[in-house]
């Protein structure tokens, strides 16, 4: 790896060999390698491994698309503490792109600080086409392209890391590309490393390659590719890298999205009344991903307690099927209270009194009799007790 502090002569030589003025590069960010994955249970390790499969696809794509260089806009790693094996595997994959220069800037997850992940011995395996940019200064790639990298050297800041980018000098006809990690101030929760939304205009940049936002987002010439592999259910358009063509300085960039992610994260909700609803849910689940084996799903079910036994059986089967086939499923069935008059009546006596008390407690009323001593119980516990009562009454197990 080359710790880039100044422009590299070798890159200029390589770039100058190109006859065309058009520049094509691959823009990616937020690999978050070594990321801890919550809410997928024991599958966390596999999810981490999948990220490397995705990285291999990114490498293949870079070769296929005949790009001039790769821009990695920060957060290559989830943390400074990631295992050595993670760094080594990443370096090995980057080494496969030895014909393509790669410019990497440290992000807020992996800022360039003493003892950082960038100082690991594993980087000594990296070849010369890998450039970790350490200083915010212009890199003159050749007569055609000037790169303005904005490496981060701390985890948090309210400073705009792109503020240093100078305006275009008179007579400068090069394509100007910014490379930064932070939050465009048009995004929600823009607190850490805020970036002016009009930075591309202010800096007369032809393209501002950004990282930090995990979903694809384009604001004029400022673009987030999103993470290569989704990290949560809340990310709506993640799992892409961008191949960008710029014909000439001042020309609008042509941004092509390429899906590379291995896994699809989907959150589904379904209210079950009958078997038709189950069928709909089935279809929805199977359409959510190209293959259900790559699906990470959170399924929230709500249904009437008095749904037919067949419907319940069908839903149960679907759940078993999805739990077996999907990469991971978080199947949530919140307690739904028996409200239908079709609920089987409990025998008269203590049990009907108990049921009445539980029902009153769930409705927020304090029942008369012994039930009033249990008014402080949480609705979940009360609901669970009532569900249990009815299940036991039906002769079902707990």
């Amino acid at each position, binding site marked *: 790896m080359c710790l880039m502090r100044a422009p590299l002569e070798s890159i200029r030589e390589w770039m100058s060999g190109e006859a065309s003025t058009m520049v094509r590069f691959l823009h990616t960010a937020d690999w978050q390698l070594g990321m801890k994955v919550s809410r997928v249970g024991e599958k966390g390790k596999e999810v981490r491994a999948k990220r490397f499969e995705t990285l291999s696809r990114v490498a293949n794509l870079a070769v296929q698309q005949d790009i001039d260089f790769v821009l990695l806009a920060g957060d290559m790693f989830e943390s400074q503490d990631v295992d050595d094996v993670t760094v080594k595997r990443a370096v090995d994959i980057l080494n496969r792109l030895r014909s393509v220069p790669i410019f990497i800037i440290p992000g807020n997850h992996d800022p360039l600080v003493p*003892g950082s992940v960038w100082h690991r011995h594993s980087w000594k395996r990296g070849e010369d086409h890998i450039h970790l940019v350490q200083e915010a200064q212009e890199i003159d790639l050749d007569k055609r392209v000037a790169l303005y990298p904005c490496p981060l050297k701390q985890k948090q800041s309210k400073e705009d890391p792109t503020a240093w980018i100078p305006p275009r000098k008179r007579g400068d006809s090069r394509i100007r590309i910014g490379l930064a990690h932070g939050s465009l101030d048009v995004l929600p929760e823009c607190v850490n490393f805020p970036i002016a939304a009009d930075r591309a205009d202010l800096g007369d940049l032809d393209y501002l390659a950004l990282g930090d936002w995990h979903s694809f987002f384009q604001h004029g010439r400022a673009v987030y590719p999103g993470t290569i592999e989704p990290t949560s259910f809340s990310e709506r358009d993640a799992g892409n890298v961008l191949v960008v063509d710029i014909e000439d300085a001042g020309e609008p960039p042509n941004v092509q999205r390429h899906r590379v992610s291995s896994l699809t994260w989907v959150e589904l909700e379904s209210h079950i009344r009958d078997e038709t609803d189950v069928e709909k849910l089935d279809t929805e689940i199977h359409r959510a991903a190209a293959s259900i084996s790559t699906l990470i799903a959170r399924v929230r079910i709500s249904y009437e307690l008095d749904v037919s036994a067949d419907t319940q059986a069908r839903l149960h089967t679907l759940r078993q099927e999805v739990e077996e086939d999907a990469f991971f499923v978080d199947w949530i069935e919140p307690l739904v209270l028996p409200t239908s008059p079709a609920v089987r009546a409990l*025998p008269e006596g203590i049990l009907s009194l108990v049921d009445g008390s539980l029902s009153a407690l769930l409705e927020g009323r304090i029942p008369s009799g012994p039930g009033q001593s249990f008014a402080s119980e949480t609705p979940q516990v009360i609901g*669970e*007790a009532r569900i249990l009562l009815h299940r036991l009454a039906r002769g079902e197990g707990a």
Partner: protein
Amino acid sequence: MIVEEIAVRNWRGYRELHTFRFAEGFNLLVGRNEAGKSALFEALTRALFDRHSGKSEEIRRIQPVDSSLGPEVSVRFRTNGQRYKVFKRFLEEPTARLYVERDGRWELDHEGDSADTVLRELLRGESFGRAVRPEHRGLAQALWYLQRESSLPEAAWNEAVREGLQGLVSLVAASPEERVIVSRVEAEYRQHYTPTGRLKSSSELATLEDEIARTESELSEIRSKTEAVEKYRQDLEELESQETDKAQQIENARLERTGLVKSVEEAERLDAEMREREHMREVEEQKFATLRNDLEAIGRRTKKTDTLGKELEDCQKERVQQRSDAAEEKRAAETYKSRWKRELEPALKKIEGELEALHCLERSRSLEDTRSHLLRHVEKVENAERELEDRKKELSRLYAPSKKEWVRFEETAGKYHDVQVQAEASAIHVGFALKVKRARITAAPAAQTIPTRNEYVITRPTTFRIGDMGSVKVWGGGESLEQLNEKADQLKTKIDETLIRFDVEDEEALSLLYRNKVETEKDVERLERGYKKILGEGPKDAEAKLRQIEGQIREEEGRLKSLPKKVGKWSSARIKHRLGELEDSKKQLIKSIDEEQGNEQNARAKHEQLLKQCGGLSEQATEMRSQIQSAGEENAETLKRYGTTEHLERLLGGAERAKKEAEDALNELLRDYELRVETPRRLYEQAENRIRALENQLVKIQEQSVDRMARIEEAASQGFYSQMSDLEAKLDVKRRRQDSLDIRTKGVKLLHDLVQAYRREQSAALAGPITDLVNGWLQLLTDGSYTNLQLNESLIPVALQGSRYRQPLPIESVSYGTHEQVIVLLRLAIGVLISKDERNLVVVDDRLVNADSIRIRRLNLILQEAAESCQILLATCHDTPYAGMKANIIRVPDDGRAASEETIPATTDILSAS
């Protein structure tokens, strides 16, 4: 349910059929102890609740002693507005039949096990295992207070009792369905909680909580390691800051050093100039020193030449004197030599010649003496030898017995004499006393006679011829006398042979011969010893010695020929005297010669010494002359460079001035040396040292940075981040499961607790009417000592509130009698309360024996009141306390015979009897 009639046969004491009929109200069963009251209640219980096919040991004990007939019981009862009749036979041909009265006729409704089951359900009994217990008897558990059974249930009244009581408070009786559901709730609760309400340690939730605690501990451990890494990273930041500072300090120090370079270069130039001036000074000093040394050397050498010239002169004079002394000494030595050589040595030779002659004469005379002595010795030896040879020849000629032969001879002679004496002692004496005169008596063989006695001694058979008269043959002594004579003859023969051999007459001659030989041998030995002694007295080779002496004598005689004859005749004394004189003269002469020779040697030594001294003086003189010459030459050589001494002296003055000038020039430079040379250099060195120190500090900081980075690398290589990630995921799964289980178990507990709460409320509602009734009776019975009975939620008495006590008294604390009476009141109250719609049977089996007469009277009132609502069957030994009560009195037969009922033949079915 009330009982109308009980009939028994082959039942313990009741061998025959006995029938007992009961009224709807108060029935008093009277009988002494062991009469069969309890047996009757047993028959009632087994008829209604037991399996007819039971063959347990308890049932076998029912069978009368020595009877093989099956115990039989028949009960007629009424319940739910219907009359029933049950017949059961146990053990032998077990039978169960249930009859129902329909339209005034008994119809067999069920038989066998079916009869058992239907009857049990009819009376709300419960199924049981091996043997029926009070809790299986439905309402009877509360209403029947029998002997050998505990006064109260262990936990709670059975379902039938509670149902019966529930009816009182208008609550819906628990349906079987509810019971099932509640039991499921209980089962579910028991899966998660202990009876004391604690979460079971084996439950999934408890296990999960343990696992979570363990996982959190692991996670905490790894987090502490990652925190250490973060600390290393902070160290690195600090170290980087320090490194930057140090680098800046080094840069500043280097700039400072650079600023000192010009001053140091000027110092170097000045230093070089100083060295040049020092060199100049040294050159001038050297020139000056050379000139001064040369001048001083010339002076020294001139002075030395003068001294040496005087010393040379003195030396030559001394040498002449010493040569003269040497010649004088040489002459004196020759004089001494002449004297001892010409005078003294000849005189000495003459004296020595005379001494030799006299000594020769002395030796000659001594040799003569020795020869004479030797000649005498040789003669003595020859004489002794000759005498010895003569005696040896004499011994060799003497033929005599040897010592051995002589000893043997003496032994033989001795034995011979002994045998002879023995023979004589054994001889026979024959005496003749004849009247015939001159009758000649002859003996053949001849016999020894003892004439004086005219006796014969015979030692062998002898024939005596007495004249013409004839002969007398005498024999005697036997064989031994003959053997002795024979042995004596043999010995005599040997003796004679020895005497003949040595040619002697008798034993004495032989003895003489032997002693002669012995003496001769002794002489030979003595002579040999004398001969050897003589030989030992002289030299071994006396003859050779003699010849040698004679040779020497001849030699000495040759030497003595020159001696005057008269001297040869001198006596030894004179010779000795003369020898003494000559020896003295000789010693005197030798002394004189030694003295003269010593004088000669001294003179010669002095001569030699003087000659050596002369040589030494000559050498000294030569050396001095050489030195004088050399000094002159050296001075001449030195002055070749300078010409004259005066010129040299002038040159020395010039050199001294030049030296002074060079020293002044150097001192002028040294005055500013500290300021212009040493100070810049010191400052430069200080700057250098500071840079080195800073560089060392920088190296240490860098080493620390390397160390921290290595630690970070080491931590990263151990995969803590992934482990933490995996553990967090694992923990998340467990916590979610824990949340889910927590809600579920809490739900189970809530449901259980709520059900329990309602049951407690229900129990409390049931307890009210019971305690109301009991409390009224209790106050009546105890005359207000106890006012309230407290029941727990299971309607089990727990305490009594008395007027004498502030606190309720635990039921176990009251007296046994009161306790029994309270239990009777409780059962009566339950009986009264559940008999609102239909009478129920209350049994009290001899439980009021511990009541005093007052309480019995009060109990009578209570029993009378209760009997208004229910059927009461009270067993007692004595009916007196109950006299006056309106009661149906049934007397149990003392001997197993019915007191008031007819007897039915054993073969008749007891049902037909009733």
